[in-house]
């Protein structure tokens, strides 16, 4: 074990337990604590407008969803093209609770943390059921099975009166210790809530990966027959990977529902499932930090493409009938994903890893 826990460089592990530490050095931990403190403190000092806070909240909610997708697709190697439907399950659970209990029922407005957990559990149930085909299917066949869940979800929501046929189902404002969270503080409040959820679930995933259950996911991904021979249960592992992903997605859905104060069908379409996959790939499949980088990169990319489209639309030299942004967004997304798959298949998370390694050695080169 390194004698200096503050500035350890290189691999000095003498036991597996040391390698499994969440923070390798005290410096890492200190930086992390400082970073988290900044994340909680900055909105109190910088007066961000509602639009900015909404964008940041969206990134945080997507992070929760991608944590789940990364578990099932990144760590367990089970491709899921229906992740937006799982997020939708969570959101519609909240909406159904609101419509059946009444939007202003204390359970919805005061016990909202419990509602978020219930939504996560409902997502987990659906995840486990949808994961059952994973016992017999792999690769593209499994992708089609999850795609079919997405299709069933969309059809069900759009047709059934129970779900208001896809129209927005409203949710009321929630309460905090200081009283009702009004419009003025709405986005700020959900920033703190979403940030807390991201941190808690992020630590949850980090810890999961240190346990035998987390290692099972990776082992089954790499070679399920070998994992079976080693005494693991590949079938059970796959189902519980889907259930975990469903839980994360359900929580993200509940956060989305409360953030937007309503649930509408068009936030959980196949398009969103593909965007989630893009986030996971760009961020870095099979990495924890990739779950944070991916949503941030894609949401900000989307905004910048939108700004570029607006600018091009109004540029005097561009034909007014061009409507470039119709093509620009899919083009840019497709291009970015192809570029990442070609040149950086490990995603932004790998850049982060390289940067950290560089800083760890700096000012020495090796």
């Amino acid at each position: 074990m390194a004698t200096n826990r503050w500035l350890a460089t290189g691999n000095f592990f003498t036991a597996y337990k040391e390698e499994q530490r969440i923070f390798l050095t005290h410096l890492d931990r200190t930086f992390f604590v400082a970073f988290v403190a900044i994340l909680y403190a900055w909105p109190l000092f910088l007066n961000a407008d509602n639009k900015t806070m909404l964008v940041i909240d969206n990134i945080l909610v997507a992070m929760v969803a991608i944590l789940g997708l990364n578990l099932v697709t990144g760590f367990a190697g089970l491709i899921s093209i229906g992740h937006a439907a799982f997020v939708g399950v969570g959101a519609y659970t909240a909406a159904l609770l609101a419509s059946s209990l009444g939007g202003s029922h204390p359970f919805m407005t005061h016990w909202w943390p419990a509602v978020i957990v219930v939504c996560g559990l409902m997502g987990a149930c659906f995840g486990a059921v949808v994961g059952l085909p994973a016992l017999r299917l792999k690769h593209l066949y499994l992708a089609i099975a999850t795609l079919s869940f997405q299709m069933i979800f969309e059809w069900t929501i759009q047709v059934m009166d129970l779900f208001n046929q896809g129209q927005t189902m409203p949710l009321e404002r929630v309460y905090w210790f200081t009283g009702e969270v009004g419009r003025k503080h709405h986005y700020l409040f959900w920033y703190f809530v979403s940030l807390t959820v991201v941190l808690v679930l992020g630590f949850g995933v980090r810890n999961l990966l240190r346990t035998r259950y987390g290692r099972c996911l990776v082992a089954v991904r790499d070679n399920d027959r070998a994992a079976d021979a080693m005494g693991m249960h590949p079938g059970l592992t796959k189902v519980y990977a889907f259930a975990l992903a469903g839980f994360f997605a359900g929580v993200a859905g509940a956060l989305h529902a409360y953030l937007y104060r309503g649930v509408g069908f068009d936030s959980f379409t196949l398009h969103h499932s593909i965007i989630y996959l893009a986030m996971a790939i760009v961020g870095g499949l099979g990495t924890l930090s990739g779950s944070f980088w991916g949503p941030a990169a894609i949401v900000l990319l989307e905004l910048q493409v939108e700004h570029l489209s607006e600018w091009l639309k109004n540029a005097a030299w561009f034909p007014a009938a061009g409507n470039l942004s119709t093509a620009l967004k899919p083009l840019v997304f497709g291009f970015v994903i192809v570029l990442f798959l070609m040149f950086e298949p490990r995603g932004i998370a790998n850049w982060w890893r390289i940067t950290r390694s560089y800083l760890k050695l700096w000012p020495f080169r090796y």
Partner: protein
Amino acid sequence: MLRTYRNQPQLAGDNQEKEGPMRGTSFWKKALVTSMVGSFALAGTAQASEAVKLGMSLAITGPTSDAGVPYSKGAEDYAKYVNDTQLLGATKIALDIRDDEYKNDVTKRLFEEFLDQGIVLYLGYSTGAILALKKDFEEVKIPVIPASFHAGNLVDSKYIFLPITSYSGQVIGLAEYVAKNHKGGKAKAAMFIHPSAFGRGPVEDAQKSVAAGLNVEIVEVVEHGKDLDNTAMIKRLMEKGVQYVITHTVQSPVATLLKAAEGLGVVAKSFGEAGKLTFLGAHYTGGNDLIALAGSSAEGFLWTTSYTLTSEASKGTDLQFEIAKKYGRDEKTMNSHNYTNGMMVVQVAVEAIRRAQAAGKKITRASLFEELNGMNGANAYSPMTTVAPVTYGAGDREGVDALQLYRAQGGKFVREGAAFTPAYYKKPN
């Protein structure tokens, strides 16, 4: 001042590295001084022009952008026209038009951005987004004029002002026309609707009217999918004795329906021809785009809206041509009823601003809300681009109450009879 450019490119300092560090420092000093002077000058201009901020988000790309694009051009051109001709005197309007891609989440973000900018009136678009944001409108007390004429927008809301009669009113008006002109017993009709809140909205109201005595039997309500052929559906309707199909969707599914009916040879040559189908449609089903898509099969299609059309001479049409030509619009855009639609919503907003100014009020959300509610009786507003005046009041937030029926004839829509008000339609309070 109309905001047309966003994210201006930063060109300053491009050659700094080539010119060396000292010249670069000099450049930055000059740039700093220039930008400071520019900022003061711009600040002065902004104060002098007294720009009233309006926000508009709509589908310029994505689903329904075929309607959204001309709609946005109409709104943009009329806003420019107001500023260029000083219709509001020294006061300018700053209309920020943004593309929501027909997505509720994007619309919500744009609406929050507009609020951060300090808009006093919001021009919305889709039914889904308006329903999703309804509570926000109530909370911030902002008057909203949407492109969606869904009657449900008005339920539990007092800040949403529909420009014309709701979809429900339009569908009921068409059903009344069928009942009045059908020869024989009770007319059998089917509804062909969009599979969304927009499409489903009028179904219940139409059924209520039938229950209240409207002499039409609604045999079937068909929610269309993305079918490229409707042959089987048409045959099924005919087997049920349907003679009239009332459509409430967008143009392309109607064109598909009409082409299939023409292929089967079942399009009625005259209204109510026995053994054939007569097709009718609400606002977003018709217009020149339908004729362009459906070709000869659109002949005889009966369409209702509250807007004047460029195929019929009127003062509103002259104004529309004048503005569209002034800002270099092509023939297709200037003849689009959605261009008229976009123009009209800005006309109403500008009129509310003008009245508030005339009354010596500060231009705020509250004063515009008050002025919109005061548009009735002798104070009704006639924008000329509609077939009747715009009237709003405490219990009436549907602007133009009258509808005009148009018939597709010789490749254009021509007026069919006089404007009318649907008798069985009850406005939501």
